[in-house]
C-alpha cells in the first residue's frame, strides 16, 4: 500500500491541504496535485533548474524535494510572480523587453531563481548574473537576453525602491 501523508502548505499566498504519496516530488505535486503547471520538470535530477521554486523565499529544485517536506512551508511558483492585478513584475517585464525567452520552458526556473538572486544581490555584475543562472539550462536563447533582462530589472528595482 502506498505510503501517504497529509500535508498543509501555502502556495502563492493560498493555503492548501492535501494527501500526498511520500515519494512524490514537490514539483510533481505542484503540477499535478495543485494544477500549477507553470513549474516545469526538465531533468528530474537537479541540474537543469527548470523546476526551481521558492520555498520560504529561497530558490530550490522542486525535483529534489519531496512534497511531504514542504509541509508547513511557504512556496512561491512562477504563477505567483506577477503583481496582484496580473501585470508583469519588473523581472518578467524585462524578460519580455529583452527577448529573454523563446520556447519558454526554462523560463519559470529562470524567473524564480533570479527573483531570489536579485533580492540578495541588488546590484550584480554581468559575471554575477551568469554564475547565478549557471544552474539553469536554456537551450534556446544563448542566455544573452536573460542576462540583459536580469541586469535591466536590477536597475529598475533599485530605482523603484
Amino acid at each position: 500500500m502506498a505510503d501517504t501523508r497529509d500535508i498543509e502548505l501555502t502556495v502563492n499566498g493560498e493555503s492548501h491541504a492535501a494527501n500526498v504519496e511520500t515519494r512524490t516530488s514537490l514539483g510533481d505535486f505542484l503540477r499535478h496535485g495543485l494544477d500549477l503547471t507553470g513549474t516545469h520538470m526538465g531533468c528530474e535530477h537537479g541540474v537543469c533548474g527548470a523546476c526551481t521554486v521558492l520555498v520560504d523565499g529561497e530558490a530550490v529544485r522542486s525535483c529534489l524535494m519531496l512534497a511531504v517536506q514542504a509541509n508547513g512551508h511557504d512556496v512561491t511558483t512562477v504563477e505567483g510572480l506577477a503583481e496582484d492585478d496580473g501585470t508583469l513584475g519588473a523581472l518578467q517585464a524585462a524578460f519580455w523587453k529583452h527577448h529573454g525567452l523563446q520556447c519558454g520552458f526554462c523560463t519559470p526556473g529562470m524567473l524564480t531563481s533570479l527573483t531570489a538572486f536579485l533580492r540578495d544581490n541588488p546590484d550584480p555584475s554581468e559575471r554575477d548574473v551568469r554564475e547565478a543562472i549557471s544552474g539553469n539550462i536554456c537551450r534556446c536563447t544563448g542566455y544573452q537576453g536573460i542576462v540583459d533582462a536580469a541586469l535591466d530589472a536590477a536597475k529598475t528595482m533599485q530605482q523603484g525602491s
Partner: protein
Amino acid sequence: MKPAPFTYHDPTTADEAVALLATHEDAKILAGGQSLMPMLNMRFVVPDHVIDLNRIDGIAGIRDGGDSIEIGAMTRQRDLMGDDVIAAKAPIIPAALHWVGHFQTRNRGTIGGSLCHLDPAAELPCLMALYDAELTVQGPEGERKVPFAEWPLAYMLPSIGPDELLTGVSVPRWGGNTGHGFVEFARRHGDFAIVAAAALLTVDGGKITRAAISIGGADVRPIRLTEAETALVGAAPDADAFKAAAEIARGIEAMSDAYVTSAYRQRLAATLVERALSAAASNLNGSA
C-alpha cells in the same frame, strides 16, 4: 523518473533517527537531498525506508569553539558561506563553497550530507581532509569521534555503520599568519571538479612554518599531500618551493573514468597544487 516506493520517516530528534536506523533494514538518510534525490529519481538507489533529518533540531548550526569551529551536520551549505565565524577563522570554506553546485542546491545541501555521500570530487570532503577535521557520529551505543583521515574507507564509502548518524564536524582553527588557496578545474561552473586542490600555509619570518595540501577528484577519496607539506616547512613561500610541491602532486595515484585518464588527473594535480599554494601565499592575513 519517479522514485520507487519507500516508507517515509521524519524523526524530530537524533536519538529517534538512530533508533529508526537500528530497527529498519535498507534505510537511507535524507539530509539536504541534493545527491540522494537524483539517485532516488533515477532509481539507482531503491531503499525500503527514507529517514528525513530535516525536522531534527540541534544538529544544525555553527558555533565558535575558540580553537575550532563546531558545525552541525545539517547545516546548509548556504549558511556555511554566509557565516561570520567561518569567514573570519576558515575563509577557505566559503571560498571553496562558491564552487559547490549552484546557489539553489546550496540552499538545501548540507555539510553532513556531502561528507556522508563522499563523492570523490566533492569540495567539502577535500576541505575536511585539509583540516583533518573531527567528525562526531552517534550510534546506539552513543557518540564516537572519527578523524577525517579515517572517514573515507573507499569510493563513496564513509566509515559509518548502518545504524549510525553523523551529527557534527569540528574544524580546527589555524592561527598565525595563514593564507589559503582553493582552486579546481571543472568543465563548467558548478560541475564536480575533475581535480581540486586546497592549501593552507602559515608563514613566520619569511619561512613556511606549517602547510597543508589536499587534492580532491583525482582519487577515489581526498588525498593529503603530506610529503609536499613536510618539504614546504622551513622553505620560503616562493615559486621554487611551490613547483617542487607540484612535482610531488604529479606523482599521486589517480583514477581514470570514461572522460579522462589518470595521467591527465596527475597533470592537473600538479598545476592546481602550484596555483593553490601561490594563492595561499598571496593572501597571508596575519590572523585567520
